[in-house]
């Protein structure tokens, strides 16, 4: 089930909200768990069992780590939990990748497993690992209630698309949380804004990609339109989904961490990754980079650590070489920035940093969006006229005009400018009173528009839920 679907908006969510709010506090986690299991079951009937098994594994490992805390067994059990989690993820997500490459390298003919990727496995696996690792490190308390633990793992607002919520973030809220009208309203608002970002903006931008794939007579400008369109689409798609997750979490009394902080206003890749998919980059930082030594090692080891983290980051996104290349691409840039580039950028006017960042991120997403490395290079060549294609044609101009406004809206929307402007306007007391009435009307209108888009449009799932 997707948040941006009629089933979710007009059937699942109203029922869950009603049942949740009329249930006494003691029963709220149970309601959430059942709702989350139903939510997952609708999207992934068979693999619901896998998610429950993963939750059970995390829970049992947690109890055992707690029991043997301070002994060598705690470490062994921790390693066991990591092997189970990564092993399960590796099997379902990467088995065929390895089989294909073994066949290629060794000229064998091993059969592919052709397993469907369980939705959200990359997210909930990392969440479970954050629990066992933090428990081992003494940063988290053991969760003795399987109900509470399973609720944490399966919590539907962030189950299939993040943010990756660490156990320590909501540890207390699992057993003690207060739902205030302020949170309910701000949660609803955040949800609707996220929904609008996804359905109205991201889904419209996705049409550029669809158009590009069926166009035979591509031009240089069309390649740029495609690249810029995707760069904006993936931001609004993913950040929209994170907004929805955070909003829904707030409705139920949870405080999920922010996952995006206007990444496209960054002036370096270093800054970009502090603003883009924050929950993932911090996860890799805390559970891979720092345990490897981080930057408190020799230069060579530091380079090694960066490359390992970014290779894994790329690999986490998909079982294809272009994702690995994407990750390594950013790893190399981060190294170069630390060594050389940042010093240069600091001396230049800010605009250079912005252009530098947007250009590199755009190329990165061209690699990310391709079906394979060959296609990635073809698309990059297309951007720079290396494919013996014309610069522009009638068809390209038509589509440029068709999508220019939505691109402009998306560009502005990807900056803090609109929210800063609204904040400034409502500083005035009188305006604030009016805004208290106008804001809900705007949100209601957005809900109507989203409904219109969903009914009118075709199925367009969130890009990241196959991770």
């Amino acid at each position: 089930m997707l948040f941006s679907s009629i089933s979710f908006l007009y059937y699942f969510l109203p029922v869950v909200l009603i049942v949740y709010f009329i249930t006494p506090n003691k029963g709220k986690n149970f309601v959430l768990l059942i709702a989350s299991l139903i939510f997952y079951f609708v999207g992934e009937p068979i693999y619901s069992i896998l998610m429950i098994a993963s939750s059970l594994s995390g829970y049992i490992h947690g109890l055992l780590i707690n029991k043997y805390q301070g002994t060598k067994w705690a470490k062994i059990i921790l390693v066991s939990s990591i092997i189970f989690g990564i092993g399960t993820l590796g099997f379902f997500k990467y088995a065929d990748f390895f089989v294909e490459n073994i066949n290629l390298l060794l000229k064998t003919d091993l059969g592919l497993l052709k397993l469907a990727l369980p939705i959200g496995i990359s997210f909930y696996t990392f969440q479970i690992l954050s629990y066992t690792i933090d428990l081992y490190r003494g940063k988290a308390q053991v969760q003795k209630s399987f109900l509470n633990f399973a609720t944490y793992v399966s919590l539907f607002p962030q189950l299939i698309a993040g943010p990756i919520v660490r156990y320590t973030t909501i540890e207390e809220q699992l057993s003690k949380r207060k739902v205030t009208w302020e949170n309910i309203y701000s949660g609803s608002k955040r949800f609707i804004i996220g929904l609008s970002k996804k359905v109205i903006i991201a889904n419209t931008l996705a049409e550029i990609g669809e158009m590009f794939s069926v166009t035979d007579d591509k031009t240089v400008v069309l390649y740029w339109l495609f690249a810029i369109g995707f760069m904006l689409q993936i931001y609004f798609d993913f950040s929209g989904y994170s907004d929805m997750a955070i909003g829904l979490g707030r409705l139920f009394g949870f405080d999920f961490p922010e996952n995006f902080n206007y990444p496209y206003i960054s002036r370096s890749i270093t800054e970009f990754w502090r603003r883009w998919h924050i929950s993932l980059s911090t996860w890799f930082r805390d559970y891979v980079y720092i345990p490897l030594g981080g930057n408190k090692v020799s230069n060579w080891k530091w380079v090694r650590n960066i490359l390992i983290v970014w290779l894994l980051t790329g690999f986490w996104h998909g079982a294809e070489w272009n994702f690995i290349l994407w990750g390594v691409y950013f790893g190399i840039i981060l190294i170069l920035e630390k060594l050389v580039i940042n010093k240069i950028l600091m001396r230049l006017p800010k605009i250079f940093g912005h252009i530098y960042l947007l250009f590199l991120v755009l190329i990165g997403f061209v690699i990310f969006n391709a079906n394979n490395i060959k296609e990635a290079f073809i698309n990059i060549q297309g951007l720079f006229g290396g494919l013996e294609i014309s610069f522009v044609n009638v068809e390209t101009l038509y589509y440029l005009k068709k999508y220019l406004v939505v691109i402009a809206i998306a560009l502005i929307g990807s900056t803090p400018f609109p929210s800063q402007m609204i904040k400034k306007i409502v500083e005035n007391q009188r305006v604030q009173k009016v805004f208290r009435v106008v804001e809900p009307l705007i949100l209601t209108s957005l809900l109507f528009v989203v409904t219109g888009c969903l009914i009118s449009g075709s199925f367009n799932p969130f890009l990241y839920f196959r991770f």
Partner: protein
Amino acid sequence: MKKMTSKFIAFLMLCGILILGMVVNITLPKQEFSYSERRKLSEFPQVKIQKIANGDFFDDLEDYFLDHFVYRDFFRRIDSLIRLNIFNQKDINGIYSINGGLYKIEYPLNEESVIALSQKIEDISQKYLKGMQLYYSVIPDKSYFVSEENGYLCLDYQEMLSILDENISLSEYIDIFSCLNVDDYYLTDIHWRQDKLVKVANQIFDGMNDSYRIILEDYEIHKLSPFYGAYYGQFPLKARPDELVYLTNETTEKALVYNYYTSSYTKVYDEEKIDSADGYSVYLEGPVPLITIENPLCDNDDELYIFRDSFGSSLAPLLIERYKKIYLIDLRYASEDLIAENIDYKEGQRVLFLYSTTIINNSSTLL
């Protein structure tokens, strides 16, 4: 406190819409058919273990919810308004509106398709039509008249005609582009209006070196409304439905129409079809593989074979004035071999290959 009250009310409003939406969607009776979209709406999916296990049930359920959402057309209009007025897009899913008329973007030119159709015409001509008088004509889609000057993508019509000319040697081309204009077509439909086809019929007679002519005044004009054309439901903003026009005279009333598919006799015009999914089926039963019209009032034995698409259905009742019998062959529903098993192509008679630019550009639809 006031702030909290307003937030409480705001949340109730938002939540209320979702709950009200759910209740209304569940309780309102369901439609089976959408006339504005010309299609059957989804049914509630069958509850089967296998379908639930593989997720198909839930996908079908979502389709069902989408199809039966309350005030569906109203919500589709909201999406269209956003696209046209906020995003400043010129078309909605390839459909656009100019002066109340609806048009579809047909682009780009599919040269392979044009060549394939040309070869098909040549093959049929060589295999079955030896000794006959062969002609072909092309019906421009109505975008031809408006697209370029209004900045919309359109086919390279000249290139299409050139390719046909280069590849069809056995049939003579009859140009009808020059006698048509945008007003000869329905506002909400792809097709042309029968009351505007007298000039087309005469142009075809002329192209066949036939001095026969018809005049509009010999016909009685009838109108059926509302006629929701093919584009009406695809463009959710309120368009005015058309009036479907058909022409009758003594010939059309006495004509014998035989539908080979249903093996039965029928009428030239079936008025009841105006209320069906395809209102254009009023003319000669709509899409059928083989249908014949016989004119008992004709004083000669001339026959005409028309290989056609849906446009031919409204032209043939005008052409029958001249012929003893017209065969209407639609290769989208039966192959030429199957057709040949059912009819005799008589030497010396005339054959007309009559296709719209849309079909020529998508000739894979022909069997």
